[in-house]
């Protein structure tokens, strides 16, 4: 094959100007790069002079795949973006399609989606904090938080049938209503989470080793964070209370009472603390949602969008044809374009969807917070210590599936 290869993705750091500097390669497969990311760092002694970060090892062509699948068939792909909080991805994607279709959701669906978004946010933040403190050696905190996460996963499994990749949303509603006893168990899990979070605070907040590793490490100002596109807990840790749930409320967030926790310093410790406070807020929001959860159906009954009932499919020719058309041709979405942004646990998750009026997206672009955050990561680790790469990388909560799409 006569294809001309360029040089491989080598960092320009490979040859250092200063003979005393050394280039260190971390990853793509390294215990501290949970996910696959490669960090090439030029170090002088122990301090990082320059860093070059490569991602893309988990790239699987999400946007190309989406152009070849019907709107419903894209849902499982969105699960695999941020697999720690798949429901948040599901709902953001579904809302983009629903707004283009112009359908109005049922009240129960809106409140359930809000509840589940916040519930999944708890799991995501817990995972992030657990993974990053584990890398600092805090094994006890890690195991406590993984216990919490597993209780939430098992509980969501009861609802959706999957621990991680839920595919629970449907365009125009949800896959099914809550099973019996789900809300009672929810309260148990929340109380369990609160009890364990107390222990985490006790273990970490004033822990000398933890504070020394986290305070003033990976520090940034608000202007710096905005310049590099940081959103979500990363941006809020610098002191700017920017949250889509407050600024442009979607779902039922406009009717919920919650605060937006912010940090002061914009360092690793603040990012840890903002995430912990957001878990508290999320727990309060889940409880509000349970109290306000209205009755009624979880899905709309628009025949353009929803599959007909199974007994009708088997007994009525119209419903059979209708079912066939929806499965083979997909939902016909009117031509148009829309950008829907949700506050995912990592930051602004945007779906930019363009429809040409057919049954498949003409284009579906994801504004993935992880990808943007990794793009600015080198500015946080340059000038620091080599060992500080690990907590800083942990605190940005890079999720490979979302970053590399």
């Amino acid at each position: 094959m006569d294809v001309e290869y360029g040089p491989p993705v080598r960092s320009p750091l490979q040859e250092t100007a200063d003979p005393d500097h050394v280039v260190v390669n971390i990853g793509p497969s390294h215990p501290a790069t949970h996910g696959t990311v490669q960090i090439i760092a030029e170090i002088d002694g122990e301090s990082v002079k320059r860093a070059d970060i490569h991602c893309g090892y988990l790239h699987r062509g999400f946007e190309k795949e989406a152009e070849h699948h019907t709107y419903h068939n894209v849902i499982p792909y969105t699960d695999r973006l941020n697999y720690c909080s798949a429901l948040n991805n599901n709902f953001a994607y579904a809302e983009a399609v629903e707004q283009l279709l112009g359908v109005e959701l049922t009240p129960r669906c809106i409140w359930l989606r809000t509840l589940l978004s916040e519930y999944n946010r708890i799991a995501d933040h817990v995972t992030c904090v657990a993974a990053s403190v584990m890398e600092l050696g805090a094994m006890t905190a890690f195991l406590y938080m993984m216990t919490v996460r597993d209780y939430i996963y098992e509980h969501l499994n009861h609802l959706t049938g999957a621990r991680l990749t839920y595919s629970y949303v449907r365009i125009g509603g949800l896959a099914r209503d809550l099973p019996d006893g789900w809300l009672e168990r929810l309260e148990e899990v929340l109380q369990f989470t609160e009890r364990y979070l107390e222990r985490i605070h006790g273990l970490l907040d004033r822990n000398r080793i933890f504070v020394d590793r986290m305070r003033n490490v990976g520090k940034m100002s608000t202007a710096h964070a905005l310049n590099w596109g940081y959103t979500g807990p990363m941006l809020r840790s610098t002191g700017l209370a920017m949250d889509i749930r407050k600024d442009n409320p979607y779902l039922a967030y406009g009717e919920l009472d919650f605060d937006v926790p912010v940090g002061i310093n914009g360092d690793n410790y603040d990012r840890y603390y903002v995430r912990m406070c957001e878990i508290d807020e999320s727990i309060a929001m889940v409880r509000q949602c349970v109290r306000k959860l209205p009755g009624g159906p979880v899905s709309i009954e628009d025949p353009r969008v929803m599959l007909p009932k199974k007994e009708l499919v088997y007994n009525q020719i119209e419903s059979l044809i209708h079912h066939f058309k929806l499965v083979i041709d997909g939902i016909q979405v009117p031509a148009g374009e829309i950008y829907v942004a949700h506050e995912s646990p990592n930051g602004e998750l945007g779906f930019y969807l363009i429809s040409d009026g057919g049954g498949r997206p003409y284009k579906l672009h994801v504004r993935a917070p992880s990808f943007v955050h990794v793009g600015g990561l080198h500015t946080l680790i340059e000038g620091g210590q080599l060992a500080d790469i690990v907590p800083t990388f942990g605190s940005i909560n890079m999720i490979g599936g979302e970053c590399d799409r």
Partner: protein
Amino acid sequence: MHDDPIAEALREHVVERGDSFGMLVLRIYPSTLRPVVARLKDEFGFDLFLDVTAIDYPARAPRFDVVYHLLSPRLKRRVRLKLAIGEPDPVVQSLTSLYGAARYMERETHEMYGIRFDGNDDLRPILLYEGFVGHPLRKDYPMEREQPIVPYRDQSGRSTEGT
């Protein structure tokens, strides 16, 4: 909509103004991209560069639309900028001088669509790899195309096979 201060201030640069589910959409000339974004940033506080991507219309005369999303934390508003560029050498101005975040996202659009960003000095592949042939998000890139196998390379980047 008609007295929108942003659209009014940029009137002479705007080819077409629209509204997409509450978001202001401005179609601008490719040559004025950087000054328009600089004004948006300075006058209206569009400090957050959210996203850049492209859309491929193989049948249309300027083949690509490059789409930007910006957010103003002060106004709590988003704006979408669109500009059309054509083949054979699609090139637009880079926004890396205004936003650090543009660096990575322009790299992605560059490899996926083959659109060059003039002023971005780092357009290495980011999600793909060196040696990938073609631009996968273009409509004429078939789903089932297979890529050539990249041979093992040594430290300096030279192939270690077949010699």
